[in-house]
C-alpha cells in the first residue's frame, strides 16, 4: 500500500488529490490520512440548503465543500481524522467490506472493539464515530472515511441543523445519528498522536506502507483539479435544479416574518416576504434587489444591509433575516 503524507487542512485540496491519484492508475491501493480546518462536507447529490446552516457557517467561517462520494453531510475539524483509500476497483458491485475490515483490524490492534452498521458506519457501543462513502473513477474506488477523535460536537450539531417549515428539492437526505468521540475511549492526548498510532498499527497489516511524495509539477496538477472542481462554488452550490423553501419565525418585539423562497441552480429566483412586522419596506424593492443573486449569506447580506439602512424593519436586524434565510 502506498502512503502519501499530507499536511493540507483544505478538504477541497484533499478531494482533488484523491481524484488525481485515481487518474494515475498506479495499480496499488493508496492511503491518505488527513485533518481539516472546520469544514462541512456535503454528499454529491445533497442540497446545501437542506443540510447546512449556512448562516452559522458564514458566521464561524466554516468551509462548505461538496464531495464526489455519496451519503450525508458531515462536519470535520482538527479533532477529526479522515482516511482515503484509493484502490483498483475489483468489480461493479458495491463493496465496503474490503476497506472496513482493514479499518476494524486497526482498531482491534489499538484495543477498541468496533462494530460495523448496516449503513457502513463504524460504531462503539452503538454510537457512530466513523462514516464511510465511495465513488468510482477511472477503474478505481475512492473510499473516504471519517474518524471522530476530538471533534467539536456542539458546532457539528449546530452546523447541520437547519430550521425550515418546508423544503422541496430532489436530493439525498442526511441521516443523523448519535455520535461519540474516540478520545472518550482512547488514551491519546491529541489527534496527531492518534494518527501516528493508527499508522503504526496499520503498517504491518498491509505489509508495510510505501511512502510517496508528489513532485512540484504533480502538485500543480492537483491544484488545477481543485480549482476547476472542488473549490468551484458552482460545483458546491449550483447542482440542485430547484429548491423551494418556506420559513417563518417570530421575532420578539418585531413580529412574524414569513418567507417563501425559490432557488434555481444556486441562484435566488423567487422571494416572497409577508408577516406582521412594522416597516415601510417595499417587498418589490426587496425582491428586485435580491433576485438573480447567488443564494448564499455573503452574497445576500450586502443587499439586505443597503435596503434595511434605507427602510428599517422595527426590531428586526440584517442578522435576523440572514439567520432566517439560511439558518
Amino acid at each position, binding site marked *: 500500500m502506498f502512503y502519501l503524507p499530507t499536511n493540507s487542512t483544505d478538504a477541497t485540496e484533499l478531494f482533488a488529490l484523491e481524484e488525481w491519484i485515481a487518474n494515475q492508475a498506479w495499480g496499488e491501493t493508496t492511503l491518505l490520512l488527513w485533518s481539516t480546518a472546520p469544514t462541512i462536507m456535503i454528499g*454529491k*447529490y445533497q442540497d446545501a440548503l437542506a443540510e447546512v446552516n449556512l448562516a452559522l457557517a458564514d458566521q464561524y467561517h466554516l468551509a462548505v465543500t461538496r464531495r464526489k462520494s*455519496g451519503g450525508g453531510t458531515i462536519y470535520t475539524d482538527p479533532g477529526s481524522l479522515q482516511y482515503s483509500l484509493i484502490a483498483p476497483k475489483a468489480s*461493479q458491485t*458495491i463493496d465496503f467490506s474490503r476497506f472496513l475490515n482493514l479499518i476494524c483490524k486497526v482498531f482491534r490492534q489499538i484495543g477498541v472493539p468496533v462494530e460495523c452498521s*448496516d449503513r*457502513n458506519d463504524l460504531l462503539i457501543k452503538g454510537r457512530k464515530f466513523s462514516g464511510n462513502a465511495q465513488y*468510482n473513477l477511472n477503474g478505481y474506488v475512492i473510499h473516504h472515511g471519517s474518524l471522530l477523535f476530538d471533534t467539536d460536537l456542539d458546532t457539528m450539531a449546530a452546523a447541520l441543523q437547519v430550521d425550515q417549515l418546508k423544503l422541496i428539492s430532489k436530493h*439525498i437526505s442526511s441521516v443523523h445519528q448519535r455520535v461519540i468521540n474516540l478520545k472518550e475511549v482512547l488514551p491519546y492526548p491529541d489527534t496527531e498522536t492518534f494518527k501516528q498510532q493508527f499508522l503504526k498499527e496499520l503498517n504491518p497489516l498491509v505489509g508495510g506502507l510505501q511512502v510517496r511524495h508528489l513532485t512540484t509539477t504533480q502538485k500543480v496538477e492537483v491544484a488545477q483539479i481543485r480549482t476547476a472542481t472542488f473549490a468551484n462554488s458552482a460545483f458546491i452550490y449550483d447542482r440542485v*435544479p430547484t429548491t423551494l423553501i418556506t420559513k417563518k419565525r417570530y421575532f420578539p418585539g418585531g413580529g412574524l416574518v414569513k418567507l417563501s423562497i425559490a432557488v434555481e441552480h444556486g441562484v435566488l429566483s423567487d422571494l416572497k416576504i409577508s408577516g406582521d412586522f412594522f416597516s415601510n419596506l417595499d417587498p418589490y424593492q426587496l425582491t428586485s434587489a435580491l433576485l438573480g443573486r447567488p443564494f448564499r449569506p455573503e452574497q445576500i447580506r450586502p443587499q439586505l444591509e443597503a435596503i434595511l439602512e434605507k427602510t428599517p424593519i422595527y426590531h428586526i436586524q440584517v442578522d435576523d433575516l440572514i439567520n432566517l434565510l439560511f439558518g
Partner: protein
Amino acid sequence: MEKELKMPKLSPKSDDYFFGSWEKQVGDEVKKGDILFEVESEKVISEVPSDYNGVLKEQRVEEGNPISAGDVVAVLEVSDS
C-alpha cells in the same frame, strides 16, 4: 434495433437507487463502455456504462428520481458495429 436498457443491480444489500445524473443526452452517440448515467445507493456514487454501441433514443428516468434494479432507464438504437 432499439434496446431497452435496465438498471443493473449494483448492490448486494439494496435494489433502490437515487438517479443522479445523465452523462449522455438524447441523440448522443454512445460507444460500448461510455458512461450513460450515474446513480447513488448506500453512500456510493456509481457510474453505469453502456454495453452497446448506438445512439441514445430516450431517457426514461428524470434526474433526482428514485429507481429500482430492473427498471427501464433508457432506450438505445443499437448499431451493428
